[in-house]
């Protein structure tokens, strides 16, 4: 019996889908059987980030409405054969599914997968309620901006009200140079404000754009610092104690070392 984790945020565009795709690939590469559920019904994206968009036959709503079996709708990744995607419907909206149906669906997935990652839509309405319905744990994604952190706080409150006892935080798109000159909130500023556990910090990384263009998650590239950050988060989700990347110290830190190695 596996566990289900919802990847959520208050504000849109902070990196939920990027995080889901990368964590899914990283977990699968570690040997876990992983199912990714795109719960952003009507705005499906996870298929594109994974490069699986041309292989969709059935989707989540087809499963819920009984047009096909769950197994028929799951798309197997060719790069990593224990990674599967359940795509969202593109031509329907969030009212096509209820929280109870999502709960049943995720429970069924947990019977044959070690980890079920659910990519939530932005916001606090029904799409969010659907995405969290079947989840055992929650990961909240934010960027180091006032509006994103504010909305993360709101989401954390809602998660706690729904008895997610310890949601964990991913801070995405940190820019070490801006943090150094005091123009971006740092990890401690954000943790102090939100008062939840940190599960990972992902730097702003051009590799993310390139990998999104190609449909190949950044964790597949060794040179991507964001990819490395995501591999570390995957390990932490599996209970490993991995030190956080030192993004800040320009010389001794990983970024400095990577800069020297890759000349960037």
């Amino acid at each position, binding site marked *: 019996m596996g566990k289900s984790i919802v990847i959520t945020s208050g504000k849109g565009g902070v990196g939920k889908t990027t995080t889901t795709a990368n964590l899914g690939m990283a977990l699968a590469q570690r040997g876990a059987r992983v199912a990714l559920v795109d719960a952003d019904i009507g705005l499906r994206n996870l298929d594109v980030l994974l490069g699986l968009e041309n292989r969709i036959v059935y989707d989540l709503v087809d499963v819920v409405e009984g047009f096909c079996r769950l197994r028929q709708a799951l798309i197997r990744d060719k790069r990593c054969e224990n990674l599967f995607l359940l795509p969202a419907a593109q031509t329907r909206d969030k009212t096509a599914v209820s929280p109870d149906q999502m709960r049943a669906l995720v429970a069924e997935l947990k019977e044959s997968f070690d980890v079920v990652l659910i990519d939530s839509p932005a916001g606090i309405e029904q799409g969010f309620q659907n995405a969290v319905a079947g989840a055992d744990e929650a990961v909240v994604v934010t960027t180091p901006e006032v509006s994103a952190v*504010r909305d993360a*706080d709101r989401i954390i409150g809602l998660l706690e009200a729904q008895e997610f006892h310890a949601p964990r935080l991913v801070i995405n798109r940190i820019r070490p140079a801006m*943090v150094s000159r*005091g*123009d971006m*909130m740092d990890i401690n500023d954000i943790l102090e*404000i939100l*008062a939840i556990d940190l599960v990972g910090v992902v730097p702003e990384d051009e590799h993310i754009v390139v990998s999104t263009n190609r449909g190949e998650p950044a964790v597949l590239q060794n040179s991507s610092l964001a990819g490395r950050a995501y591999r570390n988060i995957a390990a932490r989700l599996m209970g490993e104690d991995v030190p956080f990347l030192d993004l800040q110290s320009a010389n001794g830190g990983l970024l400095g070392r990577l800069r020297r190695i890759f000349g960037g």
Partner: protein
Amino acid sequence: MFSLLGGLRRRQAGSKDVARERLRVVLMHDRAGANPELLEQVRDALVQSLSPLVDMDRRGIQVDLRRQGQSLALVASIPVRGFKRGAGGRG
């Protein structure tokens, strides 16, 4: 001259301090679900319950939400002229 100095000082401080302070205040209100009207009512309730005991400057009263560690504190500042005779104490 003045604005030049102001500009320099602001740049030195870094905008993250501004971000953190703005977040702190906005979250205080978000979390408490408090709005200015609610704080006004709290102020009135304080005036009503304290007025038999305390002689205060009503216009100087300030009621606000502040963060104390991880929690939220309702902080009232009430300028006092004196205590009313016969209100408790030895008399």
